[in-house]
């Protein structure tokens, strides 16, 4: 089977990889062509905007750098949080500064106590009970549009599903409160270049603060929120603002990421109808198909690091203080490792894809994401095995480094609802 990738990047102009700008929509739209051009030049590419960054695209080099936290520190912001495009450095704003105190920005050893405290909430055994609920949410969402024969698969399905799984299942946030969240998201100021973590943090801070303060007054559930409230680093409990920032991190890292992968997969299957029919006829293939889709379209494309000591990587000399972007999305398409990396091949050995990263910060939510992705496709293909992509599809960068559709209109033969009483998951 050799289905080719979505044609959305087809015919794009060749970009100058040394001027690669992760915030420029033209580069975002052509991101996989840009990565391919970088692979052709070497595993480590210098890009000049924002003061100069090393883009690590080779699988071996990403493997080495992501696992070496002494040389490559995660105490780092995304380019626009500290640099103007022409390289002027400015101090972090308070919203960005507090993110530097969350799980994802702590280097070991400070990282370990927080990670170890949270890990038990994310194991396959801890996540397994979500499955029937994810299935029910997916069907409730499909019911909200099945009779209409049309929907926006991002706005009406992937995004709300990703939200409810994290809020209701992981964070035990009452489903009724989701309406407040939709209002916040819908009121986010329009931003043609996608939202930064700062925009999101500011928009969500109020909601999350209310929620965490409310949870503090409730009997403990022994979940992620209670664990964060009880976690200490060097004998000091996390301050309330750091607990809140960690909850925002979990939302930022867990919602748009998984939703984007689901929507990108529906987009891809909308273009590759033979594969879609094969998967609809034999859902047992979905587990492997999901891994190959994660390899191709893992939504987290780039993650920042700062070089802590001079080092050589992929034939380049990196100096202490240099800034680096680990291109996980490129490493999962390294032609040294994968034959015709841009092709979907169901039978491919996908074990070494790095959609969830590597090293101390590797995705804590991978078990949730994998389960949610598979169940979402199982239920979608069971209910809507045949659909047509509509016009108006928009693919872009969201929240700095997460890529995926923000509009995915499609049509399909109308069908009846399966459930009678909705629980309020749909927006």
């Amino acid at each position, binding site marked *: 089977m050799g289905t080719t990738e979505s044609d959305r990047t087809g015919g794009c102009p060749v970009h100058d990889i040394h001027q690669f700008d992760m915030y420029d929509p033209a580069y975002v739209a052509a991101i996989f062509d840009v990565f391919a051009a970088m692979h052709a030049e070497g595993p480590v590419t210098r890009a000049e905007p924002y003061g100069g960054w090393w883009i690590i695209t080779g699988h071996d080099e990403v493997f080495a750098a992501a*696992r070496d936290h002494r040389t490559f520190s995660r105490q780092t912001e995304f380019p626009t949080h500290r640099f103007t495009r022409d390289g002027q450095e400015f101090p972090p704003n308070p919203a960005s500064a507090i993110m530097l105190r969350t799980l994802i920005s702590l280097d070991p050893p400070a990282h370990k106590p927080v990670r170890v405290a*949270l*890990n038990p909430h994310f*194991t*396959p055994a801890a996540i397994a009970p979500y499955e029937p609920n994810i299935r029910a949410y997916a069907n409730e969402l499909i019911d909200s549009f099945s009779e209409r024969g049309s929907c926006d698969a991002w706005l009406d399905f992937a995004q709300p599903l990703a939200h409810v799984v994290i809020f209701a299942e992981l964070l035990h946030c009452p489903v009724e409160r989701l309406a407040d969240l939709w209002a916040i998201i819908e009121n986010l100021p329009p931003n043609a270049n996608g939202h930064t973590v700062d925009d999101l943090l500011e928009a969500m801070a109020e909601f999350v603060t209310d929620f965490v303060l409310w949870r503090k007054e409730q009997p403990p559930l022994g979940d992620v929120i209670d664990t964060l409230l009880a976690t200490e680093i060097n004998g000091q409990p996390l301050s309330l603002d750091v607990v809140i920032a960690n909850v925002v991190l979990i939302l930022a890292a867990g919602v748009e990421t998984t939703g984007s992968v689901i929507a990108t997969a529906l987009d891809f299957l909308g273009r590759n109808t033979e594969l879609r029919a094969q998967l609809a006829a034999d859902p047992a293939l979905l587990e492997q198909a999901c891994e190959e889709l994660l390899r191709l379209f893992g939504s987290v494309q780039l993650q920042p690091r700062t070089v802590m000591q001079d080092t050589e990587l992929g034939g380049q000399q990196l100096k202490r203080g240099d800034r680096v972007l680990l291109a996980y999305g490129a490493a999962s398409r390294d032609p040294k490792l994968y034959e015709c990396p841009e092709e979907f091949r169901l039978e491919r050995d996908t*074990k070494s894809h790095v959609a969830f990263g590597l*090293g101390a910060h590797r995705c804590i939510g*991978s078990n949730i994401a994998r389960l949610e992705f598979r169940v979402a496709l199982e239920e979608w293909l069971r209910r809507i095995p045949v659909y047509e992509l509509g016009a108006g599809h928009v693919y872009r960068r969201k929240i700095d480094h997460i890529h995926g559709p923000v509009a995915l209109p499609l049509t399909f033969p109308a069908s009846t609802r399966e459930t009678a009483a909705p629980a309020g998951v749909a927006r």
Partner: protein
Amino acid sequence: MKLVLDTDACQGHARCLALAPDLFDLDATGYALLLVATVPPELEAAAREAAAACPERAIALEP
């Protein structure tokens, strides 16, 4: 066949237990735990698959 786990390299991706639940579990802190040191012959194929599936290359097999 023996299983050797590099506990510094393991980051708890849980791919090993997905493929070989009789050989691996996660401990209370979320990292891999070997359930056996010596792999029974009927689980040797599963052990090889689990070792190949570890994204951190933390699992080694010794004869």
